[in-house]
């Protein structure tokens, strides 16, 4: 148990701070469409060119080959520097990249990883289907092996930024025999391939973040399979572990900052009777609880990083962090809306600093995406506590 960072790490943090201070784009980040892609990949490229992309990715694929601790410092400082959201780069940097590093073949890694880091390719995820959400292994998008190709037919849904993506981490069913988990294959799909149709879906926050994706005789070379045919479930699970763990460090720091900001806001704002919002005991109590819980979240995140630094793959303990973080972020977002009272009723564009209601709506995704909070609790119950499976 030790919080101190070696001098080398403190120097690294200083270097990161200085660079971010001088290089973080100050113009507003677009939240949908081609303008969003253009902005997000430009920012990714800027990071890459200065040597800040893929801090703990292997050097041979364009990364820096540094430690998880340095990656952690980078994420923390991004949040303190008000850097742009990761946006369309999320899946490539936080899911697909780490999965490829862990499970892909040499040629796949050499081709894709540098492109992800350089902002040359944008990735999306093709996991959920209309009939396979929490029961992900029940997916039915099928792929037939024809010669040296897979021919894919079916439908995916809730695919964020599909219309802006170049590649997709796609789960398909290659066999209906045996256990349903065993007939799944993880494959890299080219989103520009013939037979793919994309239909955007509006979200409750306003912008159309996610899409339906239809596959009609889409041909994918077998060389794009990651792992082996029929082995996709285990490849997919390594991806989800990444998503639930350190990938969210930055959002945790943002939550710390948001609470400090809300405390200041509650000290400034007065209600219609001229009373400061912080002098409302329920607001003060909720702020204090949220600040305390966010401190605990920081501790949990540091513990999770410490665990993951000791082993090659993130473990299921990430679900503890995920449950606590996702529900806490919802409570904090609702608290913000309650502090501003009727201003929370105003339709404001998503992404504006004072769009508290829209930010609250966004947090509803946190307990659904990356495994719903119910699935997370099943994982904790069954895999950490050893409780029997059931429904």
């Amino acid at each position, binding site marked *: 148990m030790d919080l101190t*960072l070696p001098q080398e790490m403190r120097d690294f943090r200083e270097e990161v701070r200085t660079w971010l201070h001088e290089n973080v784009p100050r113009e507003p980040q677009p939240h949908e469409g081609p303008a969003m892609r253009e902005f997000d990949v430009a920012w990714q490229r800027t990071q890459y060119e200065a040597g800040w992309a893929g801090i703990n990715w292997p050097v041979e694929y364009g990364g820096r080959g540094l430690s998880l601790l340095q990656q952690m410092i980078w994420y923390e400082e991004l949040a303190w520097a008000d850097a742009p959201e990761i946006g369309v780069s999320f899946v490539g940097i936080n899911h697909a990249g780490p999965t490829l590093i862990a499970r892909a073949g040499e040629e796949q890694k050499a081709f894709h990883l540098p492109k992800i880091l350089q902002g040359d390719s944008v990735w999306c995820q093709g996991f959920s289907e209309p009939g396979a959400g929490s029961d992900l292994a029940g997916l039915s998008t099928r792929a037939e092996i024809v010669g040296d190709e897979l021919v894919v037919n079916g439908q995916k849904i809730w695919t964020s930024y599909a219309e802006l993506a170049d590649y997709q981490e796609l789960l398909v069913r290659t066999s209906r025999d045996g256990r349903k988990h065993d007939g799944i294959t993880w494959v890299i799909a080219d989103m520009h391939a013939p037979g793919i149709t994309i239909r955007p879906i509006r979200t409750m926050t306003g912008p159309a973040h996610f899409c339906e994706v239809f596959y009609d005789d889409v041909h994918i070379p077998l060389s794009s399979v990651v792992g082996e045919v029929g082995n996709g479930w285990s490849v997919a699970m390594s991806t989800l572990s990444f998503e639930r763990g350190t990938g969210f460090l930055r959002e945790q720091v943002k939550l710390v900052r948001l609470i400090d900001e809300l405390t200041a806001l509650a000290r400034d704002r007065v209600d219609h009777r001229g009373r400061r919002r912080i002098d409302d005991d329920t607001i003060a109590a909720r702020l*204090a609880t949220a600040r305390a819980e966010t401190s605990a979240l920081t501790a949990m995140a540091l*513990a999770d990083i*410490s665990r993951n630094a000791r082993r090659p793959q993130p473990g299921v303990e990430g679900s503890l962090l995920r*449950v606590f973080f996702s529900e806490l972020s919802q409570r904090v977002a609702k608290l913000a809306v309650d502090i501003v009272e009727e201003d929370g009723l105003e339709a404001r564009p998503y992404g504006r600093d004072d769009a508290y209601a829209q930010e609250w709506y966004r947090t509803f995704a946190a307990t659904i995406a990356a495994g719903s909070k119910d699935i997370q*609790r099943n994982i*904790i119950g069954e895999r*950490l506590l050893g*409780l029997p499976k059931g429904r």
Partner: protein
Amino acid sequence: MDLLPDDQQTAIAEAARDLVAAHSPPSRLHTLDDDAPVTEPTLWRLAAQQGFFGLDVPERFGGAGLSLAEQTLVFHELGRSLAAGPFLGTVVAARLAAAAGDEALLADLVDGRLPVGLADVATEGLYRTFDADDARAYVVVSRDGAAFYDADAVEVVRRRPCVDAASRWAELRVTGQPRISTHPDQFDAVGYGSILISAMLSGICAATRDQSAEYAKVRKQFDLPIGSFQAVKHRCSDNAVRAEAAAQVVTLAALTMEDGRADAGLMWAAARSVTADHALRNCSDNIQNHGGIGYTGEHDAHLFLKRAQVLADLLLTQADVRDAVLDAPEARPA
């Protein structure tokens, strides 16, 4: 940076767990006599022998020269087993004596020869302790600092029965001079004590998590273990989330205090707030998970709840904790 225990720290935690479980399991509380001391003498003696009263006391004073982080591991285990006795007061007193440089007193404390009750502020001019049947001296902790009183410098004004069988409640009046006293700038006794209290509460979070999970594996209804039903399983999982948050925030609080970091004030207050809330919720869920047996006096489930209630009330009121959290400076890494 590594928040998890290393091998030596894990060994300390395991030794503490084994020792406490062997001599003072929670069920011991069912058998305590009303007017006799609550401390299990063998546990107290062996705890002293293993150095548990001075883990974070410098070696030149007879301590182990480790840190508050190791001390929290021991208190986590004391909390998990609902160990009875003046552990908190004795260890707070040791740290106070170290801060004041009173080597003779330190030697008595670290060796376990002088069990010290923890006392906080009751009403005007009076102090409150829950160690009345075991303490041979008192450490009084308040906003103004900490002070050590020998037994003949205080008198018991009145006794009150406590919901927790092992908490022996008395209100005290100070009649003599303190042997030593410190200002909060010298020794943040409220923060330090709060971290130890939080460690015990986090131990209760872990104990109730495990008790519920074990029961849910063996108790059958509708021909299935109740842990296979999501309604029960998810409560058990929530207990695990709360126990993890509690354990980690205690470690972070201990390390920030030892390192003298700017966010130490926020972290101990956060630890107090989170561990109290999480322990009481875990204890409540644990009763629910056990159904009718959980409501009985003969089961241990209510013992956890009642101890958590007492711990959550020590040194600071809920309003004090709230203010401490809100008033602490922001926590940007240096």
